[in-house]
């Protein structure tokens, strides 16, 4: 793809590397690297908060019967775990990576709209303060599930308006972040970097940003209708007034399904950067990857009702949503085969980023296959609301999205800090995580197929064994993430100097032409791309 002209880079050296000092550097930040760092640290903190909730859930599910928490609090944990992990951990981590890497990859000095960039970050800590503070109000935290289906969600206590407004704030933050990504990529590319020379991480983020702008306002509309139904007497979801609670599900999943791809497309981009580097081959089928990403994004708008096959839709509706959902397997298959073919006859090495990318490839595909099973409407009647669904989306989100984020962090961390990290420690993190994540989630397939319902704190004794296995896997997985933090802290504090290329390979992309750590202002003059 892109090779920078070294002459242009000398010009960049003349640029001042002056950083603002003190807390103002972070509060008033306009630098894409500072804002990216804040996003990543925030995402990591939220990952541990959401993870702690998951640990309590697994603790409660270790044995049948009620042991530690009351059912209402359990419901709050399930609901908040989802909201925190989706909107607080995975999405901000991707935006952080976008902030750090997109300007470096396209040869830009910064994001196109740096102040809005800062605004979109700083809204998030306040939004989550609002959301999590609801745990301390009368009635506890939001407990109707992250999907907020009425009429259940309308029965919440003081947490209800706090949740709704927190979602409004998160949505505003996402829309601003997405506008910034699109404008940066469309307007800030170095001369010569045509769209089909764009690194795939930028491509997948460009399409993700489009999805975000298209669907976050729809979520805002949906929760606004909940709010007015609750406080201002509207009848959107009330059949007595001519509305329909199922209508909420349609509007919600019109947002929700593209949201699923918002959570995975940047992961595809990261993996598409890493596998070629450690295969020492260019990516197989670059153009096909771009078109496949765009196809997935398009299809994401016409599959939403597969989340609600059992609500009583007309047969024609079920058939349409079943077929369109299965079509997604085609572009996704193109991607999986392209990654595999990239490795074919490559000179492979297994540094931590590559290990996580490979685990992503295998484990995300498992999640993809269980998704195909769920897409079959008549079979879904059986799977709906069981642990099979939980196993499915955790496979695509944890060893899928989260592993890709970790792969990205391990790939670019030396570029950020200027220091290599302990490969041994990182590989320990990889192996413990990968084994435990399967111990955690694979048995949930069995539980679901056997009929264990999701979102219920107690279960029939026949489900005990696999729940215990799953919980043990969960505790090990949770603890092993401390290794991840250890590696990051170690690399931030010091260690062997990283070279500009970092890896013992020829990684493609402009980010490898600047020194490690990347200078505070990367490209004040545009590099030339050949």
């Amino acid at each position: 793809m892109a090779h920078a002209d070294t002459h242009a880079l000398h010009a960049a050296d003349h640029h001042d590397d002056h950083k603002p000092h003190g807390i103002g550097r972070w509060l008033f930040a306009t630098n894409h690297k500072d804002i990216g760092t804040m996003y990543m640290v925030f995402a990591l903190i939220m990952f541990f908060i959401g993870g702690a909730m998951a640990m309590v859930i697994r603790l409660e599910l270790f044995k049948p019967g009620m042991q530690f928490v009351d059912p209402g609090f359990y419901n709050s944990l399930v609901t908040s775990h989802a909201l925190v992990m989706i909107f607080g951990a995975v999405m901000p981590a991707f935006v952080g990576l976008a902030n750090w890497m997109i300007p470096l990859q396209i040869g830009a000095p910064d994001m196109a709209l740096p102040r809005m960039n800062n605004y979109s970050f700083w809204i998030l800590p306040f939004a989550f303060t609002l959301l999590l503070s609801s745990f301390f109000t009368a009635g506890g935290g939001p407990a109707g599930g992250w999907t907020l289906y009425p009429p259940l969600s309308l029965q919440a206590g003081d947490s209800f308006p706090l949740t709704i407004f927190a979602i409004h704030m998160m949505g505003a933050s996402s829309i601003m972040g997405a506008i910034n990504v699109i404008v940066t990529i469309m307007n800030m590319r170095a001369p010569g970097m045509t769209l089909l020379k764009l690194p795939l991480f930028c491509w997948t983020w460009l399409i993700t940003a489009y999805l975000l702008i298209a669907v976050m306002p729809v979520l805002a509309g949906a929760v606004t209708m909940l709010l007015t139904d609750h406080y201002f007497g509207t009848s959107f979801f009330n059949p007595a007034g001519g509305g329909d609670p199922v209508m909420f599900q349609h509007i919600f999943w019109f947002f929700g399904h593209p949201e699923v791809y918002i959570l995975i497309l940047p992961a595809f981009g990261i993996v598409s950067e890493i596998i070629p580097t450690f295969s020492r081959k260019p990516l197989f089928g670059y153009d096909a990857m771009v078109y496949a990403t765009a196809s997935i994004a398009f299809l994401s708008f016409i599959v939403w009702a597969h989340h609600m096959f059992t609500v009583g839709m007309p047969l024609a509706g079920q058939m349409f949503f079943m077929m369109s959902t299965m079509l997604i397997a085609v572009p996704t298959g193109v991607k999986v085969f392209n990654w595999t073919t990239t490795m074919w006859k490559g000179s492979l090495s297994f540094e931590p980023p590559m290990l996580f990318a490979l685990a992503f490839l295998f484990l995300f595909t498992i999640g993809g296959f269980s998704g195909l099973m769920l897409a079959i409407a008549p079979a879904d009647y059986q799977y709906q609301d069981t642990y099979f669904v939980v196993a499915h989306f955790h496979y695509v989100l944890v060893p899928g999205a989260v592993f890709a984020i970790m792969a990205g962090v391990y790939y670019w961390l030396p570029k950020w800090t200027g220091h290599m990290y302990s490969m041994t420690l990182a590989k320990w993190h990889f192996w413990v995580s990968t084994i435990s994540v399967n111990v955690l989630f694979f048995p949930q397939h069995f539980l679901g197929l056997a009929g264990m319902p999701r979102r219920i704190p107690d279960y029939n004794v026949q489900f005990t064994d696999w729940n215990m296995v799953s919980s043990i896997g969960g505790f090990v997985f949770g603890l092993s993430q401390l290794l991840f933090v250890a590696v990051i802290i170690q690399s931030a504090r010091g260690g062997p100097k990283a070279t500009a290329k970092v890896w013992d390979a020829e990684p493609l992309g402009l980010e490898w032409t600047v020194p490690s750590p990347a200078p505070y202002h990367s490209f004040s003059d545009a590099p030339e791309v050949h």
Partner: protein
Amino acid sequence: MAHAPTSSDNSKYYIPHGSPWPIFGSVALFVLMSGAAMTMEGANNGPSLLGAGFVLIFTLLFCWFRTVINESEAGTYNLHVDRSFRMGMSWFIFSEVMFFAAFFGALFYARNFALPWLSGAGAKHLTPELLWRGFEGVWPSNGPLKVGPRADGSFETIPALGVPAVNTLLLLTSGLTVTIAHHALRAKNRAVLTTFLLATVLLGFLFVFLQAREYHEAYTELGLQLGTGIYGSTFFMLTGFHGFHVTVGAIMLLVIWFRVLRGHFTPDRHFAFEGVAWYWHFVDVVWLGLYIFVYWL
């Protein structure tokens, strides 16, 4: 910082210096949102917190826009930045379109699925037998329980050919006047620019005034309120959010008008004018959708 390229210097990138307004805005949103939540749940200090939130938000808008306008007038932004602003504004308007799409979607769903199904259409023939005996949902409807302010549950709708038709004419005319003003700006005819921009602002506020009068009539005489079943819900949420957008757009046009009076904008550099004009055309187009699907059909 070392970046201070002027608009003539288009080869250099421009990075704005740090700004206190984003973090100020985050605090403002937090105060506003917690104030709103507490007000809705009936907490004692909710309204005062909500009021403080509004004060902070207006302070934010005033200060942040003042900074940007001053920087723009000082020639800080080059053509590259101008293009970023244009793209940003276009995508923002797209997000607004999608926000309205959610409410239009609710309207279409309620009319084409929810009401027919409540009346027993398709495979739902047992619904009116078991749940709402004899209900025939014909638009405009406030549902089987006739939810609404009047004791008998009846309500009337606003006919499309009355004030809504006048309002359509007003908004379409205002789209024309803002375009004439734009052409005048490009042709350096400041007198025509000032007049037609002011005309646009006045047409906008006249629209809002007529809408408010219609709302008053609906609430007091027609039995049509936000709580009048699904018809009242979709009617007031769609036209209400639109009216809010018209108000915001008219205020933005007014700010642009004051800037014109101060001699801001040149024939080839006037992003703020164009951004507001795009926004104005957007609320115009949304109104046409409202006129057709809410008032007329």
